[in-house]
């Protein structure tokens, strides 16, 4: 089961496929190098020179090991924490030793000190990343996720119930279907929101949501779906697409008096999943509606908890259309 509770044993290796993890490791090691240089030399200028020289020994093994870890990430995740960590350390030391053999003469730093720095840096980076992971996952992240759980606007609930009431006498079957859709929607809404879900499930959910809006708004809402290329097996946090579509209807369709086109496109491009949701930007004359950024900020924060720096959510206005672009890594099976 794919789940954000992937860190059941709190000492899990960080996900080296994650941009945020890579960036932190890079920064952290270089900071350590600066500190080490500052500690070794009393004079600031000499310390700076020392740092510059030491980068010759530090950067090549650092970059090489990060690249190798990126490739080996799926394998490493299957190993116990201690074995994984030992492998990471062995890899870094081997690469450092190799680098020292090639360019150690230029730097003029002894083999022993180089390896010692590499070991300390590796252990500290792993400890730091593990700490970071812990701070962001179990209890804290779950609490934050529940607080952030997307909420459907009460406005939508009451208007939908009203629409169903209107159907009961004239079209009981459609009323039944609509109540079933509402039930599914609220089931998803009241789930705990911590497990990743498949794109296929999210598509089913937004289709139910759209069916209800269609009933309320009639021909004022014209949906177009472009999901033939959608990676149905990709994983994403639950209830990310629905609030985006709800925003599109709330801000782009309801304030308009005419027909409004809303587009939903989901596709896979290489190892990324792209979602585009478009709605007409209502003219200044239409009653303005507040609260757009709350939903977007909420989704952004949830994406961050699941994907760290590896997900993007951007909005733009072009040709009178308001566009939301979501870009997340393509992951299947286990998260």
């Amino acid at each position, binding site marked *: 089961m794919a789940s954000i509770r992937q860190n059941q044993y709190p000492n899990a290796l960080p996900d080296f496929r994650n941009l945020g993890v890579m960036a932190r490791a890079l920064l952290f090691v270089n900071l350590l190098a600066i500190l080490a240089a500052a500690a070794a030399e009393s004079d600031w200028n000499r310390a700076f020179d020392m740092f510059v020289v030491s980068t010759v020994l530090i950067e090549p093994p650092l970059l090489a090991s990060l690249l190798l870890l990126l490739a080996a990430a799926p394998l490493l995740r299957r190993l116990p924490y201690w074995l994984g960590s030992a492998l990471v350390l062995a890899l870094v030391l081997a690469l450092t030793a190799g680098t020292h053999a090639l360019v150690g003469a230029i730097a003029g730093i002894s083999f022993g000190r180089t390896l010692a720095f590499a070991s300390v840096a590796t252990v500290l980076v792993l400890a730091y990343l593990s700490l970071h992971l812990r701070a962001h996952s179990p209890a804290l992240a779950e609490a934050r996720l529940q607080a952030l759980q997307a909420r459907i606007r009460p406005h939508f609930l009451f208007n939908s119930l009203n629409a169903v009431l*209107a159907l009961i006498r004239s079209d009981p079957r459609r009323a039944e279907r609509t109540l079933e859709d509402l039930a599914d929607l609220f089931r998803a809404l009241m789930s705990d929101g911590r497990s990743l879900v498949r794109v296929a499930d999210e598509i089913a959910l937004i289709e139910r949501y759209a069916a209800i809006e269609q009933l309320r*708004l009639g021909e004022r809402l014209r949906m177009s779906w472009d999901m033939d290329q959608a990676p149905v097996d990709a994983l994403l946090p639950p209830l990310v697409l629905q609030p985006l579509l709800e925003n599109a209807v709330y801000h782009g369709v309801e304030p308009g008096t005419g027909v409004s086109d809303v587009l939903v496109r989901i596709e896979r491009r290489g190892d990324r999943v792209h979602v585009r949701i478009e709605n007409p930007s209502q003219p200044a004359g239409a009653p303005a509606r507040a609260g757009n950024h709350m939903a977007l900020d909420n989704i952004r924060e949830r994406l961050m908890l699941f994907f760290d720096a590896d997900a993007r959510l951007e909005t733009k206005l072009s040709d009178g259309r308001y566009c939301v672009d979501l870009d997340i890594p393509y992951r299947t099976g286990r998260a």
Partner: protein
Amino acid sequence: MTAPLKVFIADDEAPARSRLKELLADIRESVATEVAGEAGNGLDVIERLPGSGAQLLLLDIQMPGMGGIELARHLAGLESPPAIVFVTAHDRHAVEAFELNALDYLMKPVRSDRLAAALKKAAAAGPALRERLERAGAHANAGAREYFSVTERNRIALVPVSEVLFLRAELKYVTLRTKAGEHLIEEPLIAIEREFTGRFVRVHRNCLVTRAAIRGFERSSGAAGGDEEQHWNVVLEGLDERLPVSRRQWPTLKSLLPEAKE
């Protein structure tokens, strides 16, 4: 038996309108009604309601085109305005505003007994006072109106606030000037200034101009050169007429100039 109450239904969702019609039919034993008309957006209500003979309006406050509270304020200018019962799905601010100003409202989904009670009460009380609607609008944070309305007997003409160049108080009325022409409205200048904070700026005791329309200032041609007492006139975009700036307002206006030039 008394004649049925003529009810106009305004809601942007078709199912909501048919639900209200069903309910009206259900309660006809207790309140006899007749549907005088219906509309799906605010502007259609303005157009259709005045000629419909409606005595009561069931008004959804969240409609495209124009919000319910603003709509009610424009309708209040009619010779025989309808009594209004607001309908809302969920809007805490609006409900609070209705409560505070003793305006009738119903929550969606509407229940038939509540509907019957609201109809009876509103029909007996008659149209709501304009001031109450104004206060409710301010309280509900509905923001400033999008339109000014000019009522001619039984017709409401809307003038978008965005088209107004200046407003000038003259005797009983306020003249409202747009590129296209002039209209007379019956609202105090001071209330307009307060409602549309920032949009208009006072150039004279009796005149507000649209800040964004200011293109510059000119010395009045009548004044002699070098005279400290001479007048300034404000130049507005797309308007040949020059409006005098009072000495008292001049310092404020001068400071606006860089902003007006961009």
